[in-house]
């Protein structure tokens, strides 16, 4: 029955090739536009995600909590709750953490020979190098031995090296921080500026133990920087760190954390959400053309039913039931819409590749969108073919046979 309706439909469509093609064109453009637009949207989303990932989506920063004094709240990091052993515990006890380093930081006036320079001095652990992916241009990074012996050693950034030593080799030279002499053991590789203009190369790194005891005279640390093994495990690391720190800081269940964990995956999520919004927007604009294509099918089907009133009458007279007629016209609409859908899918794939090469926009074709487009175009055929088909099926055979 269905096979026969399919044959009749194919013949009817073949009889009016140009008209069938023009009718399909609406669906072709609609489906093609949906696929190409979603491909562009998805491509943009993927590029955003990649860019965010390159910023370090596996990084977590732990800050002490805030404190309220006489109604005035300090900013984040106002409390003195984090200690260096928290960093060590995080690294030792949480498997999804690949490295953790305490960070203590203060801007100091640094003197070398007859030159001086004001720069942030950062106390860190050896893991810091791997976490932030610092290159050492010359010399070596801070070692575990340096930390344990509170060694007075320092690595200097490119900007600091230039300002304090000019063209001279700084390795082995002595710099004074708060009048304490430090040996320069290495020069950091260039990192350039951050997104908001901070010069990352204007920095001095010393062992965190030395920084805490000798330079700042404190027992707490300002933050812990943690790297999860991958971007995917960032959230897991976050949760495990939170419970570990609650336990270490003896926070009762229900009480607030005395620390804060921040990670870049929030940013990544926000950015990829906005890319999703864009993809949905592009997709829905394209869907409108699919709708217009569907209306085109309905229009032509109505014309076709009127034109073929006599044929319908003949078929009914020789024994076609209403449902046979209905099926015939619905199948015709579905064949038109679905073949338009298939061509549209090819057009969509082709044009998104064209966009990729000509406009150099990243595109990503999703197989599920292709499947959905095909199903939707078939559904459009059923939906917009239904009314004309019902009109055909409800014709009175006597009137239909008499129709001129």
């Amino acid at each position, binding site marked *: 029955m269905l096979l026969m309706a399919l044959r009749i439909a194919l013949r009817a469509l073949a009889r009016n090739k140009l008209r069938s093609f023009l009718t399909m064109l609406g669906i072709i453009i609609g489906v093609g536009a949906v696929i190409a637009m979603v491909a562009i949207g998805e491509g943009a989303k993927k590029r955003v995600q990649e860019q965010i990932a390159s910023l370090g989506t596996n990084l977590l920063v732990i800050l002490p909590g805030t404190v309220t004094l006489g109604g005035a709240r300090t900013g984040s990091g106002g409390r003195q709750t984090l200690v260096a052993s928290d960093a060590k515990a995080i690294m030792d006890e949480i498997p999804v953490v690949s490295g953790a380093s305490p960070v203590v930081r203060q801007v100091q006036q640094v003197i070398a020979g007859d030159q001086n320079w004001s720069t942030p001095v950062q106390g860190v652990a050896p893991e810091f190098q791997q976490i932030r992916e610092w290159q050492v241009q010359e010399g070596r990074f801070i070692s575990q031995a340096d930390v344990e012996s509170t060694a007075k050693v320092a690595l200097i950034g490119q900007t600091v090296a230039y300002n304090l030593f000019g063209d001279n080799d700084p390795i082995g030279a002595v710099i004074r921080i708060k009048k304490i002499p430090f040996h320069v053991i290495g020069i950091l590789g260039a990192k350039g500026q951050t997104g908001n203009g901070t010069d990352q190369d204007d920095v001095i790194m010393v062992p965190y133990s030395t920084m805490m005891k000798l330079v700042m005279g404190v027992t707490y640390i300002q933050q812990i920087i943690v790297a999860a093994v991958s971007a995917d495990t960032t959230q897991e690391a976050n949760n495990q760190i939170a419970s570990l720190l609650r336990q270490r800081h003896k926070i009762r269940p229900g009480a607030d954390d005395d620390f804060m964990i921040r990670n870049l995956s929030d940013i990544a999520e926000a950015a990829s959400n906005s890319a999703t919004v864009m993809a949905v927007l592009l997709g829905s604009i394209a869907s409108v053309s699919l709708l217009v294509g569907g209306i085109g099918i309905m229009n032509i089907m109505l014309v076709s039913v009127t034109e073929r009133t006599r044929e319908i009458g003949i078929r009914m007279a020789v024994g076609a039931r209403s449902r046979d007629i209905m099926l015939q016209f619905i199948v015709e609409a579905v064949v038109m819409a679905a073949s338009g859908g298939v061509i549209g899918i090819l057009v969509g794939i082709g044009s998104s590749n064209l966009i990729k090469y000509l406009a150099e926009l990243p595109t990503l074709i999703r197989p599920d969108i292709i499947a959905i487009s095909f199903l939707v175009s078939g559904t459009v055929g059923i939906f917009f073919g239904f009314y004309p088909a019902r009109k055909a099926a409800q014709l009175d*055979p006597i009137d239909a046979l008499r129709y001129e």
Partner: protein
Amino acid sequence: MASEMLEHNNPSPPSRDVHLDGEAEVIRIRDLHKTYKMGDIEVAALRGINVTIRRGEFVAVMGASGSGKSTIMNIVGCLDRPTHGAYFLEGQDVSALSSDEWAHIRNRKIGFVFQGFNLLHRTSAVENVELPMMYNGFLSKERRQRALEVLKLVGLEERSHHLPNQLSGGQQQRVAIARALVNRPSLILADEPTGNLDTKTSVEIMELFQNLNETEGITIVLVTHEPDIAEYAKRQIVFRDGLIISDNRKN
């Protein structure tokens, strides 16, 4: 009115035979009325028809336009419902059936032949003949075989793959007759089958009907307003104002 009484009071002898031999009865119509509503006005197209047609009869239904002959043809063809009365087709009361059941009866028991041929355009003769078989589940091979067989019967086997517009009017009507015969119906309903044909072709078509009736024993009900066409039939029924005014049998 008098003629109606005549019909009522003098049931034709074949009707009596039918009671003895129900098998032979193809059409039995009793007190059939059909009233159309045109706005507020009711138009009585049929006002109490009684007629019985037996297997193998060749009946011409005559009458002026508006006499009710088209209305009775639509009802007999299961295309329209009577307002009142009974219509038995091969002993089955068909006036109460659903439209799907009607479609089935039109497919299996009735073959239509129209004045305007009513073939599908851009569809070959043989495929036009196959059309009724498409609605009753024949395999395509059986369909083709049977269609060619029937085309041969109407003398068109050589033109089976011609399109209707490549055939003359007479040939198109032969295709239509083949289409009407293809499902071996109980009767053929021919509505002014020669109305669009010249005299010579009309004679050919009527001879074909006559031949089908005599050699194949096919029951034919023919509507016409031309007396010389009606002459080919064995029985002539004349309608006027929704009533049968005469029912004559040739000897």
